[in-house]
C-alpha cells in the first residue's frame, strides 16, 4: 500500500490539467508513442472538440523513484463550475492534489473553490505554476498569489509546462514524496467507495471505486450497502488506458468492478461496496446528493421517441449522477421529461450527448431554477416548472434560491462588473484587493439571474478578464410573476417563465420580438403576446405569407422540384403545432439568446 499514490488535479477551467495529464502519461510510458494523441483522457468526442473536460477520468500510471516502482492513480477532473461535483467525488478518492495555476492568468475563482474542497478532505496540496513556456507568464507574481492563498513556501511551488513537459518529472517525484500513501487495512472487512460509474453497452454498468479497507477478489459475492443489492464480482481490475483485469485488489487501490448490473438506478455514486458474507459495520460517508440548480423540459422531437428518450436519459444518468429527471407533459410539446442540471453548460452538454450518443432529437424548453412556494394552507412546495405554480390566490409567498458569487478580475473592470451584478439584483458583500491590481468581489444574487445570459455579459463587461464561481446560499422571498406567451390567443405552456416582477415587462417585450423573428410566416397572421395573468404586456405580429416562390417553368425536371419541396417538408418536421400556429423548435429556447 505504501507504493500507491492517489491524486487528482485541480485548477480553474483551461489552466492545463488535461495537458499536464497527457505529459505524465507519456513520461510514465502509460501510453505508447503510437497510441498517443492530445487530451488522452478526454475520451468523449464532445470533450475533445470543445477542449474541455466534462467527466472525471481515472487512470493508473507506474513511476520508479529511487529504484522503487510506485502505482500512481490519477483522476483528471473538469474545471467548469457546473461540474464541481465531479471534482468533489474525485477528491474523496484521493490523498493528494496538484493545484495548477496558469502563469499567465493567476489564481481564478475556481482555483479557490476547488482548493477549498481539497482542503476540506485533508488532501496534500502540491502547488504548480503551469504554462511557464509562455512569454507572458508572470511566474513570480503568480507564485506570490499562491503563497498568499495557501501559505506554502515559495520554493515548494513547481514551475512547469504541460506543453513542453518541463519539470513534469519533478511533479511525479513530488507526488511520491509528498502525497501520503492511502491508509487502510487489507485484512479488515471490505469497504469500497463508489466514486463514478459508466455504462457500457456490452458489459452493462461499470462502477469505479476506491478500496478503503479490505481486499476484493474476482468472483466475490458483494453487496452494495445503500441499495442492499447483491452481486457477484464478475470482473475486477485497474484502470490503465484500457481496463486491466486483476485477480484481486487491495486496500488503497482504485479500480473497477463489473457485476452484470443492467439497471442504472442500482448503482449510486457514493455508495459503499462490501462483502455479502463479511460486511463492514457501516458505510463510508458518501457524497451529498448533488442538487440540480437549473431545470428544463426535454421533449422528443418525434413523439414516438418518448420511450427511447427515457432509456437514453437513464443511460446518461449512469455516467452522470447529477442529472435528474421526471416525466412531465406539455400541451405544446406532448410527453417529455423535466430534467435538473447543474448549470447551463451541463444542460447544453446533456442535450448534445443525447444527440450524438443516442441519436435523439430533442427540444429543450426555457430553463428555470427551483422555487419554494409557501401555500396559504401552510405547506411548502418545490416548484421547478412554471406550470406547477399554484393559483395566485393560494400563494402566501415564494422564495427563490440565492447564490454567493465570487468574481476575480482586474481593478479596471470593477465598474462595469458592479453595474452588471446590480442590474441582476445582486448585493455587494465584499471586495478584496488581491496581489497586484486583482480584485475579488463577492456578491449575493438570485440564481435565476445567472441562468439568463449572465456569462456572456460578464465576459463583455470584463473583456474576458473575469473568472466566476458560485455556491448556493439559501432562499429569499421574491416577487415573482408568471409570464405567459400567447400565440393567436393560445397560451403556450412550454414558453411560460417565472420571473421577477421588475424584469417581466422587459422580458415579455424581448420574447415577443425574438419570437417574431423565429416564427416563420404562415398562411394567416400570427399574433404573439406576452401576458401576466389576464394582462397583455407586449404584442408583435408575424404577417401572413401572401406569396412564395411562384412556380417557374421547369419542363420535365420534376425530380429536382420534388426534392426541393421534400427538403422544405423535412424542415417542417422540426416544427411544433400550437393551436393553428407552427412554431420552430428553437423558439422554445429563444429566451436564452435575448439581448
Amino acid at each position, binding site marked *: 500500500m505504501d507504493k500507491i499514490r492517489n491524486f487528482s488535479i485541480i485548477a480553474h477551467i483551461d489552466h492545463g490539467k488535461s495537458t499536464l495529464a497527457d505529459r505524465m502519461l507519456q513520461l510514465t510510458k502509460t501510453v505508447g508513442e503510437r497510441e498517443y494523441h492530445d487530451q488522452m483522457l478526454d475520451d468523449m468526442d464532445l470533450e475533445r472538440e470543445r477542449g474541455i473536460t466534462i467527466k472525471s477520468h481515472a487512470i493508473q500510471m507506474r513511476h520508479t523513484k529511487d529504484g522503487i516502482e510506485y502505482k500512481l492513480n490519477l483522476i483528471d477532473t473538469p474545471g467548469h463550475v457546473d461540474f464541481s461535483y465531479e471534482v468533489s467525488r474525485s477528491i474523496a478518492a484521493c490523498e493528494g492534489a496538484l493545484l495548477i495555476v496558469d502563469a499567465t492568468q493567476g489564481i481564478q475563482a475556481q482555483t479557490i473553490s476547488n482548493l477549498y474542497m481539497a482542503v476540506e478532505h485533508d488532501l496534500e496540496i502540491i502547488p504548480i505554476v503551469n504554462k511557464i513556456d509562455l512569454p507572458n507568464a508572470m511566474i513570480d507574481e503568480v507564485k506570490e498569489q499562491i503563497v498568499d492563498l495557501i501559505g506554502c513556501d515559495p520554493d515548494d511551488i513547481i514551475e512547469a509546462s504541460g506543453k513542453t513537459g518541463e519539470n513534469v518529472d519533478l511533479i511525479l517525484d513530488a507526488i511520491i514524496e509528498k502525497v501520503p500513501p492511502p491508509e487502510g487495512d487489507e485484512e479488515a472487512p471490505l469497504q469500497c467507495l463508489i466514486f463514478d460509474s459508466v455504462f457500457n453497452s456490452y458489459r452493462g454498468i461499470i462502477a469505479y471505486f476506491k478500496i478503503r479497507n479490505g481486499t476484493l477478489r474476482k468472483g466475490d459475492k458483494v453487496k452494495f450497502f445503500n441499495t442492499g443489492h447483491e452481486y457477484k464480482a464478475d470482473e475486477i481490475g485497474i484502470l490503465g488506458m484500457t481496463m486491466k483485469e486483476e485477480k484481486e485488489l487491495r486496500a488503497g487501490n482504485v479500480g473497477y468492478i463489473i457485476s452484470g448490473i443492467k439497471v442504472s438506478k442500482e448503482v449510486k455514486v457514493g455508495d459503499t461496496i462490501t462483502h455479502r458474507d463479511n460486511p463492514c459495520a457501516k458505510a463510508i460517508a458518501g457524497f451529498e446528493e448533488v442538487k440540480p440548480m437549473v431545470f428544463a423540459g426535454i421533449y422528443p422531437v418525434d413523439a414516438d421517441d418518448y420511450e427511447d428518450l427515457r432509456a437514453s436519459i437513464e443511460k446518461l444518468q449512469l455516467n452522470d449522477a447529477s442529472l435528474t429527471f421526471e416525466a412531465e407533459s406539455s400541451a405544446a410539446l406532448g410527453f417529455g421529461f423535466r430534467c435538473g442540471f447543474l448549470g447551463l453548460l451541463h444542460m447544453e452538454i446533456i442535450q448534445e450527448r443525447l444527440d450524438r450518443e443516442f441519436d435523439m432529437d430533442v427540444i429543450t424548453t426555457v430553463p428555470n431554477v427551483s422555487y419554494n412556494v409557501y401555500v396559504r394552507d401552510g405547506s411548502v412546495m418545490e416548484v421547478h416548472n412554471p406550470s406547477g405554480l399554484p393559483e395566485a390566490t393560494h400563494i402566501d409567498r415564494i422564495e427563490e434560491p440565492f447564490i454567493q458569487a465570487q468574481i476575480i478580475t482586474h481593478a479596471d473592470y470593477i465598474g462595469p462588473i458592479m453595474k452588471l451584478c446590480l442590474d441582476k439584483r445582486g448585493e455587494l458583500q465584499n471586495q478584496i484587493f488581491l496581489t497586484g491590481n486583482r480584485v475579488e468581489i463577492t456578491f449575493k444574487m438570485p440564481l435565476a439571474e445567472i441562468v439568463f445570459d449572465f456569462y456572456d455579459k460578464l465576459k463583455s463587461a470584463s473583456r474576458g478578464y473575469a473568472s466566476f464561481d458560485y455556491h448556493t446560499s439559501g432562499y429569499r422571498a421574491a416577487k415573482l410573476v408568471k409570464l405567459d406567451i400567447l400565440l393567436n390567443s393560445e397560451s403556450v405552456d412550454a414558453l411560460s417563465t417565472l420571473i421577477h416582477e421588475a424584469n417581466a415587462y422587459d422580458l415579455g417585450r424581448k420574447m415577443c420580438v425574438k419570437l417574431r423573428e423565429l416564427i416563420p410566416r404562415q*398562411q*394567416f397572421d400570427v399574433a404573439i403576446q406576452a401576458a401576466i395573468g389576464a394582462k397583455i404586456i407586449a404584442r408583435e405580429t408575424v404577417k401572413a*405569407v*401572401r*406569396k*412564395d*416562390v*411562384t*412556380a*417557374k*417553368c421547369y*419542363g*420535365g*425536371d*420534376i*425530380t429536382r*422540384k*420534388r426534392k426541393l*419541396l*421534400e427538403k*422544405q*417538408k*423535412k424542415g*417542417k*418536421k422540426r416544427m411544433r403545432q400550437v393551436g*393553428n400556429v407552427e412554431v420552430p423548435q428553437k423558439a422554445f429556447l429563444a429566451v436564452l439568446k435575448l439581448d
Partner: protein
Amino acid sequence: MAGIYIHYPFCKSRCYYCDFYSVTEEKLSEAFFQALLFELNLRKSMLGDAVIETIYFGGGTPSLLSAPKIGLIIEEIAKHFNIADHAEITIEANPDDVTSGYARRLHEEGVNRISLGIQSFYNYHLRLMNRRHKVLKGIKSIEIFKSAGFDNISIDLIYGLPEFTLAEWKKTLKKAVNLDIQHISAYHLTYEDNTVFSTLKKKGLLKPVDEELSYQQFMLLSEFLEANNFVHYEISNFGHLGRFSRHNINYWKNIPYLGLGPSAHSFDGKNRYWNDSNISKYIRIDKKIGDIITKEELSAKDFFNEYIMTGLRTYWGIDIDYIKEHFSEQQAISTERFATPYIDSEHIRKERNKLILTKKGMLISYKIIADLFMS
C-alpha cells in the same frame, strides 16, 4: 402515348435571369446535331412502341436550328416511332430568329405550335434582362407566325421584375390579349442561383419587388386573362380551350417522355432519368453513354409526392379517391387532414372529392405542396 423533348443547348447570348442549360459556343452545334441523332437511336427503346403524341423543341434557343435540321429530326423520329396524326409539335422561338421564310419552312416541316419568348413589352425590361430582341420585333414575330399559318401560338411573359409597376403589367396584359394568340405562359421572376440577377440581388443592386405587389400582379394576371377567354389551367399557364400545352400536361400526368440532349429529363413510367448538363461530354456520347445519364427509380412515396406537386399546380387539382385507390386509405385521410387548415383559410377549394388551389393558394403553392407531401 408518349412525348419527346429535344433540348437545343445553345443561345446567342445569355439572359440574366436564366438558369436553363445553354452555352454560347454555337460552333459545337453540328457535333450536337450528330450526337442527338445518335442518342435518339440509342434510347428509342425506352418508349417501346408508344405512339408519339407530342414533340417539343426547347432550349436554349432551338430557333437557332435551321428548319431543314428540325425537319430531319422529326423525320428521324418518324422512322422509329408512330407519330400521332394530330401530334403537337412545338418549338420555342426567340423573336430575333424569326423571318417569314423560317416560319413558313417550320410549318412545312410539321411544326404546329410556337412558344415565343416575348418576355416583356418594354424595351427597358428587355435590356435589363439582356434579351436580344426589342419590343417591336417581338410583336412582329407573332404576326409572321400567324401569316405562316400557325394557329397555336404561345408567348412567354415575365412579371415581378424590379420596379415593374402594376400599371405597366396591366398594359402588358392588354397588349397580349390584343395580339390574338391562343396561349400565354406568365412567369413571376425568380432569382436562380448562379445567374447574373441573383448576383446583383446579393450585392443589393437589384431589389426584388415586395410581396404585396407580386400578389397584386398575380391576381391581376389571373383575373384579367380569365375575363378574356383564357383558362388559368396551371399556376403559370393560360390557354384558350383546346389550346393548352399538351406536351406539358402530359408531364404532369405521368405519360412517359424521352428527353434528348444535355440536361434533358426522361420518364419511362417507373424511372426518371436526366442527362448531364455538359455539352462537351454530350458530343462524345457515341464513345461513352452510361456516363451522361443518371437514373432514379421512383418509390411509392416519390410517386405520391409528384402527384401532389403536379396535381396541385393545375386547375384539375388532386383527387382524394385517386389517392385512396393508388396509394392508401390512410394516405387519403392524412392528405385531407393536412389540407383542412388551408381549406379554412381559403387557399384550397374542395370540390366533391377534389382539392384545388384557389388563386390565393397558387401564390403559396410551395408551402402547401410541401405540407401535403408524405414525409
